[in-house]
């Protein structure tokens, strides 16, 4: 478990190995200190192949694939602005609301069976959280993602481009909604109705 570099160094390795890839470190505040790397969609497949094949890393085992739903967030801040009121310049307090659009995230936990190290955590983000939210599929790189990406598609509605067999896996085919999304409203006869949110 010693051969993995720090997450910043790993970012440098990826940027050196895959020219043009945009990698961002997402720090993790919990004691687990499992920081993750946000990869741009365009280079995701190449970065995944680099991580799998690089002799220093050999991340041959993609253990966990999952979706996460991040809702739109609205932050309110109070700021002081100078305004001219009745011909006199005054300092007035104003509230300004900034809206950050939500997105869906696919998270991949990678380990190496050869080198016995890990995890390296990759994140891919969709542009929005509508029904048409896309990320590239990593199933061609790691077969273990096949069923798990199908599950993220089924429950979160993330469309994995390039997946060989993207169908619902746990819900039935005629089901229309994505039940793991944070704003999912269950039908009235659902036993979870009335349970604290």
């Amino acid at each position, binding site marked *: *478990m010693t051969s993995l570099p720090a997450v910043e160094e790993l970012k440098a390795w990826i940027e050196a190995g895959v020219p043009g890839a945009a990698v961002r470190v997402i720090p*993790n*505040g*919990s*004691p*687990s200190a*499992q920081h*993750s790397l946000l990869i741009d969609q365009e280079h995701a497949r190449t970065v995944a192949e680099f991580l799998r094949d690089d002799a220093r890393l050999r991340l*041959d*085992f*993609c*253990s*966990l694939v*999952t979706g*996460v739903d991040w809702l739109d967030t609205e932050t309110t801040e109070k700021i002081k602005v100078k305004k001219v009121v009745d011909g006199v310049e005054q300092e007035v307090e104003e509230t300004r609301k900034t809206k950050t659009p939500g997105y869906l995230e696919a*998270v991949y*936990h990678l380990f190496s*069976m050869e080198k*016995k190290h890990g*995890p390296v*955590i990759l994140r891919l983000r969709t542009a929005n959280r509508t029904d048409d939210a896309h990320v590239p599929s990593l199933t061609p790189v*790691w*077969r*273990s*993602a*096949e*069923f*798990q990406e199908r599950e993220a598609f089924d*429950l979160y509605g993330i469309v994995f481009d390039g997946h060989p067999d993207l169908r619902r*896996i*746990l*819900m*039935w085919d005629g089901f229309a909604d994505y*039940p*793991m999304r944070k704003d999912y409203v269950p039908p009235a006869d659902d036993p*979870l109705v009335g*349970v*604290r*949110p």
Partner: protein
Amino acid sequence: MVRLESGPGEIMEVSMGPHHPSTHGVFRMDVRLEGERVVRLKPVFGYLHRNHEKIAEHGAYLSAIPYTDRLDYLCSMTNNWGYVLAVEKLAGIPVPERAEYIRVIVAELTRFQNHAGLVGFLLQDMGASGTPLMYAFREREKILDLFESLSGARMMCNYMRFGGVRVDCSAEWLEEVRQLNARLPRFVDEFEALLRGNEILMARTQGTGVLSRELAINAGVTGPMLRASGVNYDIRKVDKYGVYDRFAFRVPLGDHGDVYDRYMMRILEMRESVKILEQALKDIPEGPVMDPKTRLRGLRPKAGEAYGRIESPKGELGFFLISDGTTNPYRYRVRPPSMINLTILEDMCLGRNIADVVITLGSVDIVLGEVDR
């Protein structure tokens, strides 16, 4: 059954399941056959889906523990352990040494009864009706009795807590485990002698359902199935979680990755579990099983995330948790080993006889409570 093409080279589609006796619950396979040869196989599941993950996200950290019992309902102790390990990583909770030993003891007992049961079921699928399964269940019964006297429940133990275990075990209980453990090797000998060298067993299992080393790694196969394909990867050795670094035990490896190797892995792992139990029962220290300051109710881990994983009897059981600083997990995800091990079921069955599908599936070791969640 649907005839897709008629005449020579006729293709038939058969729906095996969801109530086929070999599917261990409600699981279905859409199998396309040319004669008796499998040309396509698609697993269909979700019949037991209850959105376990959503339920856990609706409740506090503590209230998810009894739900984890119901994932792989044969191994509630290891399910508990996987989850509490992830919470301990997320919130940085220390575990007293005695609790770590008790966890090892109950987890190895769980592994033993799971493997015994699996071998029994596998032979049942091959037509050895009753006898091997009942031999396995006789031993499993004794282990479940021990779980009952420890936790109050035979299968839904709800025993572990983040920061330790719910109740301490008595000296008498440890003595009972010691006595049982002394008898277990004889059971494994008897079980193995009954079957090893059996011509039918050999003919049916050797060379059936072969899984190559490369595909096993790439497809994220874990547990005894991975090791049967010759990959030395046991999370007890790799992560050394709990106190597993203190015990001497070996990791059995297979050569061919066929059903026979997977069957032998279970037998050999049972023997290693007995060794671990022996050492843990000898070395277990006195002391508390839980720090009284550990907050169980209303635990609010700092915002962040953690992935914790253990070597469950079926493979890598992991839990991925994201905290937003409130009392409920923002994201709760189970890495279900038996669902991921199903990914390559089609690859193992293509070109084989339909009768081999049954035993290949049997050797994967699935529990639908975990596959469907």
